[in-house]
């Protein structure tokens, strides 16, 4: 930090990224979760892509193999957390972002504090439905995943490059309605891999169950590796 005097106003140079504090908090949280053997999946998508339905399907196939808890982040309401609890029976809480379009590491930490982490292998954070802001803020998650649904179009990786480049896993949901949309699965995969060559891509349908076992197995493998 340097200072100089100019026209009666003193200038204090800061030169610091707005995201620096959050990045530091997120790295600290990730390290703590690693030590506790808790895997945190940050699941992102646009509103209406089927996050909640996909999670219910997946958790119902996973809960014999992993101890799962869910944090639902929304600007308001608790419909998702109640639905999750009723349909899967796993521990689920609702986080309110107070009008903000994303969760940050500090809000994630507060949410985790309300869960019984010592009895949990996998925490799934359902982030606010939005393809822009959540990508900017590291939550401290062990891995990032997103859902792109067929009606949104195969060009979304081109329009929201940051979101696709921060995700380890991309689920392409609603494959059952593919015949009704001008959606080219191969072109979509190419668009994703151009942004992020390391991304794992799994086509799914939360409605018919296609691909859900593959997603569940991906989670089991990731959690096992995390606990090593």
């Amino acid at each position: 930090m340097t200072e100089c005097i100019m026209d009666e106003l003193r200038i204090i140079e800061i030169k610091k990224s707005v995201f620096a504090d959050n990045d530091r908090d997120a790295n600290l949280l990730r390290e703590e979760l690693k030590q506790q053997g808790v895997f945190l999946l940050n699941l992102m998508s646009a509103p209406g892509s089927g996050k909640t339905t996909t999670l219910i399907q997946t958790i119902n196939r996973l809960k014999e193999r992993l101890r799962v808890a869910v944090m639902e982040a929304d600007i308001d309401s608790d419909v998702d957390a109640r639905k999750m609890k009723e349909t899967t029976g796993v521990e689920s809480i609702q986080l309110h972002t107070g009008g903000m379009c994303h969760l940050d590491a500090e809000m994630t930490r507060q949410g985790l504090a309300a869960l019984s982490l010592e009895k949990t292998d996998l925490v799934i954070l359902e982030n606010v439905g939005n393809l822009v802001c959540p990508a900017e803020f590291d939550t401290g998650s062990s891995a990032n995943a997103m859902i792109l649904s067929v009606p949104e179009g195969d060009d979304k990786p081109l329009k929201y490059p940051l979101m696709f480049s921060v995700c380890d896993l991309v689920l392409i949901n609603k494959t059952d309605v593919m015949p009704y949309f001008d959606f080219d699965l191969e072109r979509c995969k190419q668009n994703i891999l151009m942004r992020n060559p390391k991304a794992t891509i799994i086509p799914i349908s939360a409605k018919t169950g296609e691909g859900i076992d593959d997603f569940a197995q991906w989670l089991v493998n990731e959690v096992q590796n995390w606990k090593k």
Partner: protein
Amino acid sequence: MHELGIVFYIIRDVKQVAEENHVEHVASVVMDIGEVSTVMPHLLSDCWRWAADKEPMLQGCESEVNTIPAVTWCDGCKSEYPTVAHGRTCPRCGSENTWLLRGNEVEIKEIKV
């Protein structure tokens, strides 16, 4: 909404720096915002006005934005080109083997007190 979240971070950082420097009131905050950072400067200043006026130390404090032009590097022909005009594809050689050099900044440059 995105900009409001960013404003809250800026306020936290600026208050911390001001307190460390025993400053009672900040006259202006200068930001460096990249052209492709996803932050819209006019929304940032609207959010700034609303949120800053709620903080005694920042009442009336101006926000100034320096826009940092986005520049992409092409690995195909080893040259730079402006990102906003041409996107990911190099206008000289057509290569898509390109990456952003600058233009993604969301930084607090300095404060005037």
